[in-house]
């Protein structure tokens, strides 16, 4: 890679990081300084601005894994596989965040850490699915295209499972509240809360995007390093 190209990359990185940093600071102010306190839940409700965006990003990340997996199987382009794997890793991290903030919120509001409700359970299963994707991937041989193809198969099967797990909501009793945005008639957020929520959604998506870029770049560097090491040992 030419040094000029490297320079533009570095500039782009800085710009993204600055944008993300500013947005995150603004987000924190919006959540704690701007959005009104919820009447019954009080300060605990602030978890909402982290919990729901993290859930959204984890779904987005797994959807990217799904698309990357399909693209890889059709085009056999290595980039699609790297995108799928990087996104699965990030998705697992965000899903972990959902599973941690959920009980933290549930304990003071519902009085329990966890309940075997459909939405909680399906998020838990989603987390397990992509954890198993990552585990399996780490055990597949890195030589040839085997790891790429087989991970893609698991990525597709795993994602297809998500809506079916979710369908179980119909005949399973559910404790999780209906979605507050576009949920039922009596649900809804105060306008200031809505603004804060959407901004938080944007910030989390931005965070995912910046991390994804970094992860993919790290992959490229890693492969270059491996190639150099191989050349060194061959000499």
């Amino acid at each position, binding site marked *: 890679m030419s040094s000029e190209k490297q320079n533009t990359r570095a500039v782009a990185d800085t710009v993204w990081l600055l944008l993300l940093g500013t947005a995150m600071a603004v987000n924190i102010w919006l959540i704690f300084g701007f959005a009104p306190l919820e009447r019954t839940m009080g300060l605990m409700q602030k978890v909402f601005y982290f919990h729901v965006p993290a859930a959204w990003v984890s779904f987005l990340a797994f959807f990217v894994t799904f698309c990357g997996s399909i693209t890889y199987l059709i085009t056999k382009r290595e980039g699609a596989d790297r995108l799928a794997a990087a996104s699965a890793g990030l998705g697992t991290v965000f899903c972990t965040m959902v599973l941690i903030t959920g009980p933290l919120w549930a304990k003071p509001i519902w009085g329990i850490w966890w309940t075997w409700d459909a939405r909680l359970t399906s998020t838990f299963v989603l987390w397990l699915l992509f954890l198993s994707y990552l585990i399996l991937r780490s055990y597949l*041989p890195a030589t040839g295209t085997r790891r790429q193809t087989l991970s893609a198969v698991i990525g597709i*099967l795993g994602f297809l499972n998500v809506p079916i797990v979710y369908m*179980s909501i119909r005949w399973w009793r559910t404790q999780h509240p209906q979605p507050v945005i576009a949920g039922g008639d009596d649900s809804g957020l105060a306008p200031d809360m809505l603004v804060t929520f959407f901004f938080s959604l944007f910030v989390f998506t931005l965070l995912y995007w910046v991390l994804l870029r970094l992860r993919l770049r790290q992959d490229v560097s890693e492969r270059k390093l491996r190639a150099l090491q191989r050349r060194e040992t061959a000499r």
Partner: protein
Amino acid sequence: MRTLRNILLLVGKDIRLELRTKQGVVSMTVFSILTVLLLAFAFEPGREETEWIGPGLLWIAFSFAGTIGLETTQTSEREEGALEALRMAPVGRGSLYLGKLIANVILLSVVELVTLPLFGILFNFEVLPMLPELLTVQFFGTIGFAAVGTILAAVTSYTKLRGVLLPVVLFPMIVPVLLAAVEATAAAFRGDPMTGALRLLIVYDIVFVTTGVLLFGSVLEE
């Protein structure tokens, strides 16, 4: 027509292999019975509890035994270059998948049919009156289990750890099957209709058999 004949030939191959060695059925059945026994020790269910935990107990036993079954039918392909021969066979990849799937379903069904009466005897539970319902659930549940299991067994057989990873990948994926099958079995035990859960099972079967047919080729190319 030819496709159908090819599939039947492939199923016949696996069944004949099993009839000669009997390694799969025997270990699966023993394991299935052992699971029922261990769970019975762990929970010591009485008459009422059996109705309550019985469905889950049965399906845990089936899934554990099924995992072993998937493993055996896959391992046999790795011996003497059987997989290479299959790859070279003038048969569509989808047929290879369906052949393996049907063989797995048959193998699992045999084990389930042995476990079920044994469960009835050990727990003093009348399974005969609800047999048609139970067999329906078993049929669709087993297809769903094997649809995902067949392809995952092929995938995990390429890893260094072979079968060890199969349950790790398989169990999160069969959560819907397990949920719906347990729910439907419980409904059958109570004498209730089981339409909702059964419908979910059928949807699952259709989605994953189709996906399996489409994806098995990629798995085999590797």
